[in-house]
């Protein structure tokens, strides 16, 4: 006992906490980065405004920012833009939830069962080489041009990376963690809830985030081809009627939504793992 307590005194538990505050030079660099992040879009908008004023290009090609803004306000207040948005996001989340559910179930099954892995994984590796958009024609023929085909496409784009992440998450669990559970005769269900799930969660969450970003891109692409509403459809309609302002608004909104989804997911991730932040070795 005596020598044990000596060891404890040499290493205060507060030590790792002190490491969390970044040193001053790092904070400076971080501030510079923040400034650049704010400045770069401003520079872009100013440059664009000047270019549209220069008269070198017709206003239909280099649409002045104020025209874009006016179009945006019009379409927002007449309810068209919100309708397109809710249409797109509804499909995204619907398909995403279905795909994530299937992905988690399949991936985890492959992770815990060698047999499931042998049957399913080769197919997954083939599917992975296939861009989801390449499936659009086939899926249209099978599922028609209604809502189903878009849900299926989003679900497919989600399920694959999620399943692979779940699989890798389970496979990456150190063997001795499972050995410890077996040594102490932990029941299978408790092993699953107390070891396999928390151990594979960090990898799975990364996969869920990638899948969300990818699904959004796939959905917008699909809407360009088959839809009667949605951001993609709005852009396609703008192209047909030679309304570059509408197309550009679609582009900007698509980018902003992708960005927001990713940031939102990261925030959620931080919130969920805050309690176990210190676990990362």
């Amino acid at each position, binding site marked *: *006992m005596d*020598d*044990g*307590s000596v*060891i*404890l005194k040499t*290493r205060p*538990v507060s030590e*790792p906490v002190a490491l969390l505050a970044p040193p001053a030079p790092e904070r400076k660099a971080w501030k510079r980065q923040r400034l650049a992040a704010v400045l770069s879009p401003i520079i872009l908008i100013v440059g664009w405004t000047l270019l549209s004023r220069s008269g070198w290009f017709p206003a239909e090609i280099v649409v002045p920012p104020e025209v874009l803004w006016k179009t945006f306000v019009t379409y927002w207040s007449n309810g068209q833009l919100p309708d397109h948005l809710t249409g797109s996001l509804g499909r995204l989340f619907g398909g995403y939830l279905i795909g994530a559910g299937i992905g988690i179930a399949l991936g985890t099954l492959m992770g815990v069962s060698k047999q499931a892995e042998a049957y399913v994984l080769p197919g997954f590796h083939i599917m992975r080489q296939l861009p989801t958009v390449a499936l659009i024609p086939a899926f249209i023929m099978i599922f028609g041009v209604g809502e189903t085909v878009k849900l299926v496409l989003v679900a497919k784009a989600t399920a694959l990376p999620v399943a692979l992440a779940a699989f890798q998450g389970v496979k990456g669990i*150190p063997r*001795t*963690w499972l*050995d*410890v559970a*077996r*040594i*102490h*005769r*932990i*029941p299978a269900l*408790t092993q699953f809830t*107390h*070891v396999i799930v*928390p*151990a594979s969660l960090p990898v799975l969450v990364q996969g869920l985030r990638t899948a969300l970003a990818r699904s959004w891109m796939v959905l917008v692409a699909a809407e360009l081809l088959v839809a009667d509403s949605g951001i993609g459809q709005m852009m396609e309609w703008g192209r047909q009627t030679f309304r570059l302002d509408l197309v550009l608004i679609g582009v900007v909104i698509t980018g902003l939504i992708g960005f927001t989804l990713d940031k939102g997911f990261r925030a959620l991730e931080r919130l969920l793992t805050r309690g*176990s932040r*210190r*676990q*990362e*070795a």
Partner: protein
Amino acid sequence: MAFETPSPTAKLSIQSLSKNYVIDQKALRVLLNIDLDVHEGEFVSIVGRSGCGKSTLLRLVSGLENDYSGTIQLDGKVINAPSLDRGMIFQDPSLLPWMTVRENVAFALVNQNIPKAEKDKRVLDLIDLVGLKGFESAYPKELSGGMAQRAAIARALVSQPKVLLLDEPLGALDALTRLRLQNELQRIWLQHRMTMIMVTHDVEEAVYLGDRVVIMDPEPGRIRRIVDVPLPHPRDRASPVLHAIRDEVLKDLTNGVVI
């Protein structure tokens, strides 16, 4: 110390144990005709070059692997699956990072039918025993390597196994921490007199702690020789007898091998 065990001792008997691995449809002999009896409350060290199957031997005794020929018996009962009467400690402490020290130790008791109050008491007693009092709520990442291994020892002991299997338990620690934990292991072993079997690369450690030192040869893994260490515990590291035995084991181990 509040921690009490009803002297959990056991006799382990290994007879003509062989084990093959099949790799690319070729059988690889890992262990060949191992005969070893470990007495109640004995401390047996196993040393040998890499690939001599010493870790596999421990995994077979633990029941984590069960595909073998020959017999392994504990108190006359054949071993073919893990059981709470055999605890194990790995080189990596293998604490679950999302659980505190206390939760990690208590995790070993999930499948034990004991009242909660008793469980809590046993967990705290064990944490105290390994010298981690005050760190019950710490997460593994907040612990040094030595402290994490102490927590792992507490977890292995809390289910009161008759036999404790140690697979290079101190192999990843720095020299000083290693010496301290060797003393801790000796102290715990003296206090509870359970059977301990430890695989190690460190001959000094093997001789210092072991009542007997098993020297194994690789490819296929077999016992070359068993050396007695006829010294009472706790031992004096400076003892000339100890050093003589260490030199002998070391010589035997490196015999014919270029190092």
